[in-house]
């Protein structure tokens, strides 16, 4: 067991899977010689050669399309979208082809594909380097979507995604890369897709989230514990399919729930989680379901005060949590 950065856990997962199975290969913009703009794929071309760490042209639709074709022929591609913001030219390939191949071919064909895409802002990236496009893909049956927060899950979920027989979108948070650190076993393990994880046990309020904002939630929970507020934290880990039972159990624990994500509020994952709770747990609720999300504005501002306004932070999260606890 070694303490490891989030980004190192992702890199290690790819390295291990490529060593384990020679059908696994990575492709994307600058993933080879440069080792990825964030160094996520650093060292892979040296170890596995240029045929398994493919530098592609700047054409996301082609990256996804090539990966889908390779996957249908039995390869296990890990396609990287340099930033999830650049993913939209590939949405047609992902939604209309990858997600539907098994269904369309009556089980004759499958598409064991992983698409990695860094999400999230707070890095002075502005409009084209900060988006959270989860909601674009969220409502598409046929796709699995994971969004790990802890390095342990980053490695385990990526390995599970590679071994999954169907397309998995792997949303990694670029702000987490060097910020989130944690124990990662150097052994071979996977984290099951579709299972949420309790990060912290508590009895006053339940916070449900995924990816980067959980960092603030954990910090805020620590501080609120001093004030006597005990927080139950659930990391969804998988967005599609949602762990319905995990969500309901976490809510039953306290009857007060705050759902949190960086993607904007309207039509976000939180809306679905909220609907599940409302459908199943009306009589267990002790407070209105609360959501804390990015504002419904078209883009992440590039100016620092604007970005600060847009982004969640520990204080905003703590305030919302305290508010719910006091209700």
């Amino acid at each position, binding site marked *: 067991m070694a303490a490891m950065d989030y980004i190192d856990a992702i890199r290690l997962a790819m390295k291990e899977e490529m060593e384990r199975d020679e059908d696994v290969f990575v492709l994307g913009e600058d993933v080879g010689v440069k080792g990825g703009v964030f160094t996520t794929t650093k060292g892979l071309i040296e170890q596995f050669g240029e045929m398994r760490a493919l530098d592609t042209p700047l054409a996301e639709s082609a990256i996804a399309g090539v990966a889908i074709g390779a996957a249908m022929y039995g390869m296990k591609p890990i396609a990287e979208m340099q930033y999830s913001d650049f993913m939209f030219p590939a949405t047609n390939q992902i939604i209309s082809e990858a997600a539907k191949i098994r269904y369309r071919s009556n089980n004759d064909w499958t598409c064991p594909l992983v698409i990695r895409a860094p999400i999230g802002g707070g*890095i002075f990236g502005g409009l084209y380097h900060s988006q959270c496009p989860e909601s674009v893909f969220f409502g598409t049956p046929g796709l699995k979507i994971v969004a790990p927060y802890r390095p342990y899950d980053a490695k385990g979920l990526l390995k599970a995604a590679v071994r999954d027989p169907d397309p998995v979108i792997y949303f990694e948070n670029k*702000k987490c*890369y*060097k910020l989130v650190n944690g124990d990662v076993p150097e052994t071979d393990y996977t984290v099951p897709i579709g299972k949420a994880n309790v990060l912290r046990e508590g009895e006053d309020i339940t916070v449900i989230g995924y990816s980067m904002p959980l960092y603030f939630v954990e910090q805020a929970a620590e501080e609120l514990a001093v004030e006597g507020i005990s927080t139950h934290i659930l990391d969804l880990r998988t967005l599609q399919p949602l762990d319905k039972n995990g969500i309901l159990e976490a809510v039953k624990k306290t009857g007060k729930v705050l759902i949190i994500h960086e993607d904007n509020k309207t039509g976000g994952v939180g809306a679905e989680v909220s609907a599940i709770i409302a459908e199943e747990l009306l009589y267990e609720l002790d407070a209105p379901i609360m959501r804390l999300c990015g504002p419904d504005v078209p883009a992440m501002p590039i100016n620092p005060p604007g970005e600060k306004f847009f982004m969640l932070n520990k204080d905003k999260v703590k305030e919302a949590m305290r508010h719910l606890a006091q*209700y």
Partner: protein
Amino acid sequence: MKTLTEIVVPQLAESLVSATIDKWLKQPGDWIDIYEPVCEILTDKVNAELPSTVAGKMVKILVGKGETVPVGTAICLVETEGGANEEQPVQAGAVTAAQTTTGFPDSAQDAPMRGRFSPAVQQLAAEHSVRLTEVTGTGLGGRITRKDVLAYVASGAGKSNSAAGAATAAAQSAVDAAAQVRSSGLHLTETPRLPKIEVEGFAGAGRGDSFIDVTPIRNTIARNMRQSVSEIPHAWTMIEVDVTNLVLLRNKLKDEFMKREGINLTYLAFLLKAVVNAIKDFPIMNSMWAVDKIIVKRDINISLAVGTEDSVLTPVIKNADHKNVAGLAKEIDELARKTREGKLTLSDMQGGTFTVNNTGSFGSILSYPIINYPQAAILTFESIVKRPVVINDMLAVRSMANLCLSLDHRILDGVICGRFLQRVKDNLESFNQESKLY
């Protein structure tokens, strides 16, 4: 005034969260210009010189050579002239102060949420036969939380109470007792209240008279009415309209409209449409007297007289000529509601160019309106009543309504007003079952 300013590790590149100090280029005591490099830093992505964000004298190095610190950490202190950078620490202080004072509300004080029970609380109360009136609420506004009930059950209090279900139900029905606010229709209550009555019993003055305070709104109405009557030479005319087809049209559409829009489809909306279209043909109706000239207004903004129990106001439907019947109906509903709830803003009241008063709503069949100064004319829409009417030498029962018009005789004369009213009449009578609202 000299102040100490911190220089912090900036976000040098996306995804970077920390940086290492490689070498200090300035030492305590050195003068630093703004943007002059103070040290060299190493990161995973870039190695760079760190420029100063201020000009001043380096006072102290906080992070030594070779140390790695997170983004946002202060690495040195610089003494600067003036207090330009003072604001931030003060703000941060204020925020923490505000946060620490926020505690749990005192349940002994007023508790507006005391009677609101969440589903979880009601379920627990039923399960454990807890009488909620005996539970102390620690939530927002004295609300009883799920945990309060659990604590109450755990404490073993109130075990003997078995009629708890009834208590919950009683508390709930009390919540429903709140009064409802009317939000549509122009009808007045049957017994209008007299505002602020002060009875002074004079000795020997019989039964004594009532004195009513003149409210500011009453005073305004009085002043405007007096100004209008004294400055404008009023003339008056009336026309009779057959609205039978309109009645049929409205009856056909009103339920669907209510379902779709959630508001009443009133006759007034159709009338406004007819009036606005007639004004377009006779723009002089939409004008005002300016002594040496007549100003003809380009925008058609209809002032709508809306009565309340003790006053009348004239909120304005702006650019009424840009709206269809459905749009006008919505505006009427909105303005009527705002008037009754006392939520009209100044901008709701300004810019009117022609006034319409729905006098029929209180049963009038004929009225002599006073012009809404400084406009040129005012039109009233009287009650729709069924009357025997002669059509082609035959008697028929038709729905009839009167339209009355008061006009500023300095601007307008009988002929133009007669034509205008005739056009309004034609417009109203040409509504039929095929007319569209949108």
